[in-house]
């Protein structure tokens, strides 16, 4: 399996650490109700198809990546740096 890091280029999956779905980027604001935290930490769409999730180029540039990919075919169609992601 291979992933294209925007900085380092295409690399074998073994160089990356997987965290979870992109939900982890939408941290509830201070004082938000616990239900929002349940959504943020636990509840997931978990689609069988296209999803967006978070990978860390652990053996490379240490950048966190937001990857658009398909959980059935493993095709990945877009990768962007979390630090420079579109809003």
């Amino acid at each position, binding site marked *: 399996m291979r992933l294209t890091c925007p900085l380092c280029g295409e*690399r074998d999956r073994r160089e990356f650490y997987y965290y979870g779905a992109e939900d982890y980027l939408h941290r509830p604001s201070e004082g938000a109700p616990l239900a929002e935290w349940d959504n943020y930490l636990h509840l997931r769409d978990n689609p069988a198809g296209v999803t967006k999730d978070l990978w860390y180029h652990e053996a490379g*540039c240490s950048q966190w990546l937001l990857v658009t990919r398909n959980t059935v075919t493993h095709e990945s169609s877009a990768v962007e740096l979390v*630090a420079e992601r579109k809003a």
Partner: protein
Amino acid sequence: MPELIAKSALDGRSLTLGHVTLTEAEPGPITSVAVYPGQGKAVAKGLKTLGLAMPAPNSFVEKKGARIVWTGREQAFLIGVAPPVLEGAAVTDQSDGWTVLALSGAGAVDVLARLVPLDLRLTACPVGTALRSQVNHMNAVILRTGDHAFEILVFRSMARTAWHEIEAAMQMLAARMGMKF
């Protein structure tokens, strides 16, 4: 209080086997330069005093013994020279954090093919390339320093493991060579 004696991780070890030579190199100072957001120009000014600039991803530039290696987003290692004053960047001494192994010879690419999940042949990895990847299970910075030469930076505490794994690959390749004749 007597002077403290310095020791490298591998005491300058060297090995030649089947057209490949592995030695512990002495890189001199290594300094991490990490640019603060929006401070690119300030840092460029500082680096210009060495005739250098922040390198493009996956590359390194060398001028009069001073080498600047891309190591991440808005980050580089300045190697072989003391760092100038650098406004706009976090400057951190990394000199003692890394062991540098020089690997050279016709079989160098084949040796690394046993350990690095990258195409390091000259066509795909020309001189001046700097890649952050892995040597087996260890993180490493791999520099293509010559047509048949690499320098590999690994964490100093793992130097013995890195040496052992590269040496094992050299021995297996030498044994394969022996088989052909």
